[in-house]
């Protein structure tokens, strides 16, 4: 097994972990963290795919790399928005979970 495959499996495991956390964590902040784990697992898989496309003297296919960078920025924006909503929710209601309103 090569390192690349290893990281690929690691990415798959991170996706599973992120999904699990996103589903079962009751706190919104923990959900946001899980979302970030999940996202980084997905991007890691993408990175592995990029690495497998090493050619023309480049160690990693540049197209997926560029896409990963874009996705990282988007994920950051999403996290900002989620955190801001969470802070408003805590301010207004004093709770940080979603499932009490049914």
């Amino acid at each position, binding site marked *: 097994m090569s390192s690349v495959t290893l990281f690929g499996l690691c990415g798959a495991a991170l996706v599973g972990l992120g999904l699990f956390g996103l589903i079962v964590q009751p706190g919104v902040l923990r959900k946001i963290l899980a979302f970030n784990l999940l996202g980084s697992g997905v991007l890691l898989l*993408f990175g592995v795919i990029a690495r497998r496309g090493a050619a023309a003297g480049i160690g990693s296919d540049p197209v997926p790399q560029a896409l990963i960078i874009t996705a990282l920025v988007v994920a950051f924006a999403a996290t900002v928005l989620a955190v801001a909503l969470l802070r408003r929710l805590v301010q*207004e209601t004093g709770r940080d979970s979603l499932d009490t309103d049914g």
Partner: protein
Amino acid sequence: MDSLFTLTPPAAWGAPLLVTALMLPVAALMLAFVLGGRHAERVVLATLPIGLGVAVAIAAAVLHQGATLHYDLGGWAPPLGVSLHADGLSATLLLTTAVVLCAVGLYARADFRVPSGAREARAPLAFWTLLLAVWAGLNAVFLGQDLFNLYVALELLTFAAVPLVCLRGSPQTIAAALRYLLFALLGSVLYLLGGALFYGAYGTLDIALLSARLASGDPIAPAALAAAALMTAGLLAKTALFPLHLWLPPAHAGAPAAGSAVLSALVVKASFFLILRLWFDVMPDPLTHLAAQVLATLGAAAILFGGILALRQARLKMLIAYSTLAQIGYLFLVFPLVASPAAAPALDLVQAPGAWTGGVLQLVSHAFAKAAMFMAAGLIAGALGHDQVRGLGGLGRVLPMTVFAFALAGLSLMGLPPSGGFAAKWLLLSAAIETGQWWWTLVMLAGGLLTGGYLFRVLAPALSTRGPPLTLVKPVERSRELVVLGLALCSVVLGLVPLSSFGLVQIGRLGATGIGLP
């Protein structure tokens, strides 16, 4: 791959219009943001008619040439570059979007005015810029031909839609927006994962190239199956197909009326549109047959479930939101009807397109009708100070035009003639019978009964003549009522357009392209 060449005729006029459609709202967004204050509204209202003109021009170009429009951005052809693409369906949806947004823009002026004395206020600036952003996101989704570009477009749309939900800032709407955001993000990540897997298997994200490679590569890559399943699931989460609707009712009911109209009429359709693209433009045909039954089963459940719940809502906006849930279900009945094994061999080009046209018609007429309904509900809530269904008795006497518009939109939702909803239902029913899948007809008809039921709950008291006369908290502007009525009429008039001229939505469909081209 002859069909690929027919898809991209070299000398199609109007292709640069695609760039205009994509960039106009983006440019307007930046302008509105920088100028701020009262200028934001002016920028939007100036941009909307231009955008409508562009959408009309694109539809005309597609219809006139009978072929899809195609534009390679930066001159870089896929797979390295990203291209834009407008077939008949895209053109139809661009046009629908432009019309609905024009109406929403006119309607929202009264709700999002900068109060006198202030240079700028929070809600107006946010609303007008977000409206432009929604527009940009929708156009990007409808024009995108690259799966990752579409991911960015989807995120643009999500980031525009979520703040719309909680523009009012009440704790309930904040919770609804958060729920919406998190679930939509979960969907986006699954979509992105699917995109990565497609790239890993075939080295491209361009829809046309991917489709060609999927069709030619003999054993289909395991990654492609996983990709299609994950992407579909992610998009379903964003479309709020039953049972993934946890976020929809509070979000759509909590937003200000103009926002609800946009969310319910257009935003959920964007992710649905991508499922259509994925299933019919990317995945090879037989692969999706079994899965199509899964989708349609959920759609059927949505129709019944959403209809029954709409019957039991105490608030008008919640009722309309659950109605959206049910109406989304109809869209998913398209999958087994278009992708049925029975339709494929009988593809004498007369039978199979019915379901497709019916589905698109359902999508478009629901967009008009639902936007009209939410905006009518907004007028009602504004005038009465509440939107309790129980308190609507005698409404017809004080707001006759609003109630009339609501009823017209309801006509289309129920699928009564001569509305667009009727034409859609007729085509879908025919397709179900033609392909031997009669059980879907029962669902559609039962759904119509439920729709009639929940609309009756609103309209019967509204039209009743007993009881004390209602007092209005606030008068309703006639111009806003006219806007709502106009949209409702659109959804009805769609059914009057003879079925033959719906050829537009077939342009660019494989198989149907053969008709349009010499």
